[in-house]
């Protein structure tokens, strides 16, 4: 969550507010873009008109047609589309649904249903919007609710400002300024002019009145009450609607107090302004400049104030009373003030903020591209499958090139078939895209960021950056003795906190880092040039990069918009080129097509490829040969390992581990103790360069979530609820987009840490927070936003939080399954099983495997193919090619178009059809024969070697007796998940169920392989490097004799838990949360107990049984007692068989 602040810099308040502010610049830029795009769009569509000239819409929340579509329509028909709401310029708000708080805030606006636009276009002229109004009785609603609201504000808003009661008077100014900065953004031009000289304000009048007249053009009698105001506003720069002035009132009153002369009408506003400035300037503000900026919008509300009494309606009385109480709580005005600014997401509570937030958060946008590109790759593959073959232009080219100079530089194909993964990564993607048409910036330090100014901003009141920095520093200190050099800088407070999305290598040399705040970077590197985001270009470049890659092979995994993995194993074999040649060709291609450089790292697995890329950068390539792996990886910092983030690396530092070499010194048990079994195992393998995930083009989604921790400032519980509802809708949208439903809903909340400043250093950021999460499981998977919202609100109430301290909210939906009910029943729709419980406990980072169906494993065993690798779907995926029974025969294997190495048992010669053997490719045949010969040479001396089903994963590298490692040519187009993996999978990835289902011999063997891996690292290394050296003789000689005796068994686990305490927790959860145990769970427990017996761990068995007895017989449900009896009976049978007597259960 903490990283999320990152993306949300859209509304970053930067240092050059003096010229209108970032928002102003942005809005005007957006307008420009719109103007620019309009003609193009018109050209494209052909049907254009000017129906909507003079209309400027702002789309709020979900609409049909979508905001984008509306934008296009407005382009076509002469209208304006505002991405940000500006009261002065936006004429209509388009929405289909607004929550109450929103309605209360949008007073004089014309809130219109989108049909207005579509119908107008149909009719060919602009229809009256009246009948399309969303709320016909806007008017009456407004007033009553306003009053109620004002009161609420007063009563509820005292707290946030308590921390600074010492300057009650200046407070109001300070706080006021806080909110008014926002207003600046809305009225950039106004401010721009105002800034220079107050007298210039007159120059505004024409413009202001113009706007107003435009607005008035559409004022309908229903809104009649606005009229006096509107006309009044002719005198003043801004239209002030009743709603806003109502809520402005308290503040204005306070002004009046301070400066009696101010209570004059708007015509005096110039004077007014000046006087205000003079009074306010002694206040402790950073500078007069910002002061001025802050203050001058205030007078604009004054006309409203004076207008209100003119109306002399009932509400005045209320107001007066309000004002009375107001003086006691001077700060509340601020709240009221800021809350009526719908254009900005002043509060998370506003509807549409969420979808707006996500549709505008640009980095969020980019992060979704990865899915897009994954889909793109998938689409390519499926198209190819459908077409039965594709033309790989790049591949062809390379082939030709090779043919041309086959005698020359390109060497003959290396005969060893070695898996080779290419990791293609664009060099500082954002920067190189940003400057590809700006040659003047090449070679200069460049950063992509939203900030283009000097990198300084005024410190906002209520914030305490120093404290926050100290906090983070302290946090780091927990692990590290010395504080990194870029720690606290007292001046930092004044620096821009726009983060740098990407910076060029030149900038990196100066110490600038991605994610650094721009202000800080500017200090480090004064020459730093900033380049704006260019999202269109990013997409184009990324797409052409993927196109380039796809012209070679379709074995691509999209990692992000500028990063992809390519499994080139088969490509290399087919083309007969070296990896370096291929990489060069790809890089040249990319450079040519995109104008940006890419780096390529190559290695025998994904991990190594990625690490090689680090070495390759910038603009280079590096092939990490398997024989160099050891030396290479030893010097790599641990932080370069995937999954080792900031917190883990600081933890490692505390263990005095900084490089992978150091990490190799730690035993696996130590690592597992420190980091938990899975992560420990992962680290243990990673630091040895072991990684067995194949390149996969399709990725299963684990969860769908929406999170927002920017600008969350609730004042009331209802707001939070509304927000949750909206967030749920966003989640629903995403679930629908992904075609998924989930069963588990997690609500994550960031709450201001007690003692942390109310206002964080970053504007709208979340500051120092505590994170809380709660989750609930539903009976049925859902994608309904309402349902999710209901659950989320329940969870929210259960957390009993102070809404005012909430700084971030996230909703996550897990346990996903396809929304089209899966007939195969793969989803856990049958109810909650033990595994779900476990899953919920440990948010698995390695995919959870489906246990092979019983019939699945039996046939697998018969054929001698180990299912160790667990690509989960072997049994469940309806892949036609992988008939499990057919694998024992090399011939059939050939049909199984897996793109991975397959290891199978070679049947004895007598069982092989000679004709089939002859039909095999020469090299495969040789291997088969060789393995026979080998088998004859060494009669099975030990039980170990004669165990019938040989696995792919035995410790001796390469083919050991009776086993043959076949490497089949890569058959593209078959998802790799169906393959059988040669390398031993991560132990943590071995599904205990599958494991338990294996025959004993296999289990023992696997286990010994794992043990061996742990014990003799050299072997592992040998394995990884010798994996592709296909000389069977090299392997078996050095295997210690002891191995044959070596048959430790796996520790029996219950759904992954093996510590008694874990098992106990699991059982307790199982028994207490579920009213009726499922049969498969019971069987699971029985199996576990049986394993315990076989593992000769009667003590644990005894404890487990006794614990279950206590639990289950206590349970009110009689089914549990029955379940226990069933389990006990089964266990007793096993014990009886093994020990000749039964357990004594008292």
């Amino acid at each position, binding site marked *: 969550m903490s990283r999320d602040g990152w993306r949300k810099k859209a509304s970053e308040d930067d240092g050059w507010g003096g010229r209108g502010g970032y928002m102003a610049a942005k809005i005007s830029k957006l307008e420009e873009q719109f103007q620019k795009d309009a003609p193009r769009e018109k050209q494209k569509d052909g049907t254009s008109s000017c129906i909507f000239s003079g209309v400027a819409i702002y789309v709020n929340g979900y609409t049909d047609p979508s905001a984008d579509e509306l934008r296009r329509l407005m382009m076509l028909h002469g209208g304006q589309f505002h991405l940000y709401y500006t009261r002065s310029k936006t004429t209509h708000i388009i929405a289909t649904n607004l929550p109450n708080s929103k309605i209360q805030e949008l007073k004089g606006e014309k809130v219109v249903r989108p049909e207005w636009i579509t119908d107008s276009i149909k009719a060919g002229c602009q229809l009256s919007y009246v009948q399309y109004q969303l709320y016909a009785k806007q008017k009456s609603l407004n007033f009553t609710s306003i009053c109620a609201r004002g009161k609420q504000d007063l009563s509820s808003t005292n707290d946030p400002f308590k921390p600074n009661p010492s300057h009650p008077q200046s407070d109001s100014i300070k706080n006021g300024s806080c909110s008014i900065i926002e207003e600046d953004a809305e009225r950039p031009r106004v401010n721009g002019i105002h800034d220079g000289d107050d007298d210039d304000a007159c120059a505004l009048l024409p413009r202001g009145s113009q706007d107003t007249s435009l607005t008035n053009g559409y004022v309908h009698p229903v809104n009649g009450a606005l009229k006096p105001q509107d006309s009044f506003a002719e005198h003043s720069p801004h239209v002030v609607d009743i709603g806003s002035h109502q809520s402005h009132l308290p503040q204005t009153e306070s002004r009046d107090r301070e400066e009696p002369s101010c209570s004059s009408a708007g015509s005096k506003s110039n004077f007014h302004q000046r006087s205000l400035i003079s009074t306010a300037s002694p206040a402790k503000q950073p500078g007069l400049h910002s002061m001025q900026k802050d203050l001058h919008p205030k007078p604009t509300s004054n006309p409203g104030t004076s207008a209100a009494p003119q109306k002399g309606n009932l509400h005045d009385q209320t107001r007066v009373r309000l004002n009375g109480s107001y003086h006691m709580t001077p700060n509340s005005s601020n709240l009221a003030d800021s809350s009526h600014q719908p254009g900005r997401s002043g509060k998370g509570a506003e509807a549409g903020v969420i979808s707006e937030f996500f549709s505008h958060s640009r980095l969020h946008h980019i992060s979704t591209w990865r899915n897009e590109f994954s889909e793109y790759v998938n689409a390519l593959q499926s198209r190819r499958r459908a077409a039965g073959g594709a033309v790989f232009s790049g591949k062809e080219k390379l082939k030709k090139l090779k043919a041309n100079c086959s005698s020359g530089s390109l060497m003959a194909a290396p005969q060893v078939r070695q898996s080779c993964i290419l990791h293609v990564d664009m060099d500082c993607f954002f920067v190189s895209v940003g400057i590809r048409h700006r040659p003047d910036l090449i070679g200069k330090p460049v950063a992509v960021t939203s900030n283009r100014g000097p990198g300084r901003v005024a410190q906002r009141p209520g914030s305490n950056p120093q404290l926050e920095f100290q906090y983070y520093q302290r946090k780091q200190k927990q692990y590290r003795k010395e504080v990194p050099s870029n720690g606290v800088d007292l001046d930092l407070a004044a620096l821009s906190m726009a983060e740098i999305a990407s910076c060029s290598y030149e900038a990196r040399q100066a110490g600038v880092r991605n994610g650094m705040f721009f202000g800080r970077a500017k200090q480090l590197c004064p020459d730093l040039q900033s380049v704006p985001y260019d999202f269109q270009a990013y997409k184009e470049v990324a797409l052409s990069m993927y196109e380039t890659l796809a012209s070679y092979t379709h074995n691509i995994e999209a990692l992000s918009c500028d990063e992809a993995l390519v499994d080139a194993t088969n490509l290399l074999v087919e083309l007969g080129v070296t990896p370096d040649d291929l990489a060069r060709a790809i890089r040249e291609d990319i450079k040519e097509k995109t104008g940006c450089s890419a780096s390529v790292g190559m290695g025998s697995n994904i991990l190594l490829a990625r690490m090689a890329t680090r070495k390759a950068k910038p603009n280079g390539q590096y092939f990490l040969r398997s024989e160099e792996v050891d030396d290479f990886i030893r010097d790599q910092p641990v932080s370069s390992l995937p999954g080792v983030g900031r917190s883990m690396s600081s933890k490692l530092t505390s263990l005095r581990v900084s490089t992978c070499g150091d990490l190799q010194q730690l035993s696996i048990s130590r690592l597992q103790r420190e980091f938990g079994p899975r992560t420990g195992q992962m680290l243990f393998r990673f630091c040895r360069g072991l990684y067995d995930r194949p390149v996969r083009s399709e990725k299963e989604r684990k969860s769908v979530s929406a999170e927002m921790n920017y600008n969350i400032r609730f004042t009331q519980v209802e707001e939070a609820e509304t927000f949750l509802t909206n967030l749920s809708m966003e989640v629903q949208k995403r679930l629908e987009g992904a075609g998924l439903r989930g069963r588990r809903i997690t609500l994550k909340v960031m709450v201001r840490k007690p003692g942390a400043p109310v206002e964080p250093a970053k504007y709208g950021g979340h500051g120092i927070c505590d994170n809380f999460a709660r989750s609930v499981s539903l009976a049925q998977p859902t994608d309904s936003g309402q349902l999710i919202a209901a659950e989320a609100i329940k969870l929210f109430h259960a957390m009993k939080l102070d809404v005012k301290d909430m700084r971030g909210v996230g909703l996550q939906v897990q346990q996903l399954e396809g929304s089209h009910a899966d007939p195969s029943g793969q989803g856990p729709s049958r109810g909650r099983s033990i595994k779900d419980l476990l899953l919920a406990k440990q948010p698995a980072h390695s995919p959870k495997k489906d246990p092979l169906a019983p019939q699945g494993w039996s046939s697998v065993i018969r054929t001698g193919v180990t299912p160790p690798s667990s690509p989960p779907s072997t049994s469940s995926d309806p892949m036609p090619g992988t008939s499990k029974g057919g694998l024992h025969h090399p011939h059939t294997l050939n049909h199984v178009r897996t793109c991975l190495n397959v290891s199978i048992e070679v049947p004895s010669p007598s069982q092989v059809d000679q004709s089939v053997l002859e039909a095999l490719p020469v090299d495969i045949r040789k291997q088969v024969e060789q393995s026979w010969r080998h088998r004859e040479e060494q009669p099975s001396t030990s039980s170990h070697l004669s165990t019938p089903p040989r696995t792919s994963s035995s410790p001796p590298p390469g083919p050991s007796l009776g086993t043959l490692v076949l490497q089949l040519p890569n058959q593209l187009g078959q998802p790799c998940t169906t393959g059988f993996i040669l390398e031993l999978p991560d132990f943590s990835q071995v599904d205990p169920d599958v494991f338990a289902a294996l025959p004993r011999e296999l289990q023992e063997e696997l286990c010994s392989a794992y043990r061996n891996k742990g014990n003799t690292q050299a072997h592992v290394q040998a394995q990884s490097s010798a994996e592709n050296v296909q000389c069977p003789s090299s392997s078996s000689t050095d295997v210690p004799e002891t191995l044959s005796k070596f048959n430790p068994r796996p520790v029996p686990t219950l759904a992954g838990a093996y510590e008694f305490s874990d098992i106990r927790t699991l059982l307790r959860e199982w028994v207490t949360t579920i009213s009726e145990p499922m049969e498969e769970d019971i069987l699971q427990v029985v199996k576990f107990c049986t394993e315990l017996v076989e593992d000769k761990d*009667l*003590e644990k068995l005894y404890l487990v049984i006794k614990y279950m007895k206590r639990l289950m017989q206590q349970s009110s449900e009689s089914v549990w007692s029955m379940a226990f009896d069933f389990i006990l009976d089964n266990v007793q049978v096993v014990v009886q068989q093994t*020990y*000749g007597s039964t357990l004594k259960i008292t």
Partner: protein
Amino acid sequence: FSSHYFNLQCNMILQKLFKYSLKSIFGYFTMATLTRQDLNFGQVVADILCEFLEVAIHLILYVRDVYPSGIFQKRKKYNVPVQMSCHPDLNQYIQDTLHCVKPLIEKNEAEKVVVVIMDKEHRPVERFVFEISQPPLLSISSETLLSHVEQLLRAIILKISVCDAVLDNNPPGCTFTVLVHTREAATRNMEKVQVIKDFPWIVADEQEVHMEEAKLIPLKTMTSDILKMQLYVEEKTQKT
């Protein structure tokens, strides 16, 4: 597995009580400095295990009231109090027995060491089974490892000293015997190597090995790098 059962009969009749110095048995192991070069790991494990079994057998005999408590003395082993018989013949018998067990353990050929307690009619009423399995690759790396093993052994000892809580009382006049379950063909060599003269192994009677209507009570399981052992008791349902 075709296991053979051997049995050492013990026809001890208590006649005299002697003091017995235990120094030679207890505590010689901890003094030794272990280095990879000069120690056979199998031997080390066998030493540790036999030492433990000796303590355990003494304690079992005490806890299960096989012999009058008067012949036992309190000692400290594994940092916990244990009871040790002072009867020289009994001690000699136990020592000799374990001496014969040791070569088997060294070669990892003993699967179970069973202390059988029998009633007057020589029908077993309780069987304390030490089920042993050793990992094939032995490695002793440091002192910490041994202290870890000591902790585990201590836990078993403590379990034994409280096991009477879960067991029924034995009938009076019990005797005991030690059985060894060997793995595979370990017996072949055993005849050749007689550690102690005139103290041969004999095949156990079926009657002594099997107990009807037995109940199994697991006491403790230990798992360490050098040794995996579990102790359970098989108890006859009706002892009298």
